């Protein structure tokens, strides 16, 4: 190990910290935003007691969860019970390694970035399944089964939506995908790939187990689903993973369909501000969905995934492929 290697390792660790700390803060304040937004939509005030406008509320919540005892049920499988939350949060954080914020601000600008994100996020389901099984409880197990089937189903539709993006961008590199959308909002991929954009957005909601697809938790049917036996920080880690995944899906939607850090009009400067604005908008959609729609019935979720989304994506991939061979091909690039 020479000095240069050590320097690179330390510098990378610093960069990881610089990525994870704002992400965790983002997660904390996303929970605040969620409670406020849904509060306003339901003509309530939302959290307003801790600090000015309730702004310290997420910190208070975090502190409270840190202080609580982590109870491991007597019948639980101890090792796996602890492994569950770890396996839930690790992929949610690891996927951020390849997410670019601007064309230079990216931790690892790797060539197969899109594939990497898809592969890493597909690991997230293990946290849920293991937690559900190791809890040794009916409700937790039912939640785990539901979420396993749901996440595997929607991953296929999600993957096919990404195939459309990589056909349009002709690259798997996330920086190149954004660069392919340069030149004003009418060049962004959500226009030529509109059906795939919708499928990706909805499948993203289902992948993160958010309302109206939150049957894995389904508090009115199976109490709280896979994390019913978890308390304190172990529960909080599941919570962090869910919100980190939400931000991740929003960021990916922004990068692949909404032009990432590019400005909507060519004469305005590009920058990370646009990235934040667009991601924030998609996150707002997530909250809006939750406040608006009642929970889907389980068989309807499965039908939507397999019989509606997958055919739509396959048809649109064929359309994109065929159009690229015509004189109008430039519209799909």
């Amino acid at each position, binding site marked *: 190990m020479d000095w240069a290697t050590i320097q690179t390792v330390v510098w990378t660790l610093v960069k990881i910290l610089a990525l994870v700390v704002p992400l965790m803060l983002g997660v904390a304040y996303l929970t605040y935003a969620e409670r406020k937004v849904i509060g306003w939509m339901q003509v309530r005030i939302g959290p307003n007691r801790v600090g000015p406008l309730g702004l310290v509320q997420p910190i208070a919540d975090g502190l409270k969860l840190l202080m609580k005892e982590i109870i491991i049920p007597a019948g639980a499988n101890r090792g*796996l019970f602890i492994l569950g939350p770890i396996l839930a949060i690790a992929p949610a954080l690891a996927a951020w390694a390849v997410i670019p914020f601007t064309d230079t601000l990216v931790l690892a600008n790797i060539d197969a970035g899109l*594939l990497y994100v898809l*592969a*890493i996020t*597909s690991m997230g*389901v293990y946290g849920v399944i293991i937690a559900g099984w190791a809890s040794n409880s009916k409700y937790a197990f039912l939640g785990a089964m539901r979420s396993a089937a749901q996440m*595997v189903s929607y991953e296929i539709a999600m993957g096919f939506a990404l195939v459309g993006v990589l056909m349009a961008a002709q690259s798997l590199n996330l920086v190149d995908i954004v660069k392919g959308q340069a030149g004003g909002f009418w060049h962004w991929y959500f226009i030529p790939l509109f059906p795939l954009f919708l499928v990706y957005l909805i499948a993203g909601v289902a992948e993160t187990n958010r309302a109206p697809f939150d049957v894995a938790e389904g508090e009115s049917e199976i109490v709280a689903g896979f994390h019913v036996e978890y308390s304190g920080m172990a529960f909080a880690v599941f919570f962090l993973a869910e919100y980190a995944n939400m931000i991740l899906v929003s960021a990916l939607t922004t990068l692949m369909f909404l032009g990432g850090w590019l400005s909507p009009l060519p004469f305005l400067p590009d920058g990370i501000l646009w990235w934040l604005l667009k991601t924030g908008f998609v996150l707002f959609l997530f909250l809006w969905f939750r406040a608006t729609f009642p929970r889907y019935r389980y*068989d309807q979720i499965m039908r939507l995934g397999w019989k509606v989304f997958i055919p739509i994506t396959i048809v649109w991939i064929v359309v994109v492929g065929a159009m690229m061979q015509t004189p109008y091909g430039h519209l799909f690039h």
Partner: protein
Amino acid sequence: MYTTAIFYFFSAILVFAALRVITVRNPVHAALHLVLAFFTAAGLWMLLEAEFLAIVLVLVYVGAVMVLFLFVVMMLDINLDRLREGFWKYMPVAVLVSVLLMIEMALILGGRYFGLEVMGTPSPQPADYSNTRALGRLLYTDYVYAFELAAVILLVAIVAAIALALRRRKDSKFIDPAEQVKVKRDDRLRIVKMAAEKAPGAGIQDSAEKGA
């Protein structure tokens, strides 16, 4: 030297995980060790600069196949005592099969086809070399017939699996979402106008008694 260290680290984990798959008692633990083995194997492929294969291994085997596998294993109620029954009875057959497998592997891997002189270390590719593109080009040009043939065989397998498992029950009720969407209020609900009915004095008296 750095890569060598990583290689041995990954290999050690891989061998350990693979051994645990067959030695561990609990089938769920065995499946999870198999997941670990796949993931570590993907790491080794990454060291060989086969990033596409590595990521696809994680995506397909870890992300989908093993999830469904675990799904099934978790729902089984396996009696361990009955599983160990007849261990010694089947031992000779098992040993025979393993010895055969080992001979076969030794014949292939014994240096004649896969030795260092034949295969050599792959030369490192430049940074802009895309493994994915190269693989795609090969699959859809040189090996297009074999590739399409494999695809058709898989399709036939899917159709066959569905045809074998499909049982239409006559007594089960089907839901047609198109019909459901088209439903109007009047199909489900009938509003009847009628004069309010009064039970002779009962309601009022009851509540008065409870209050007292």
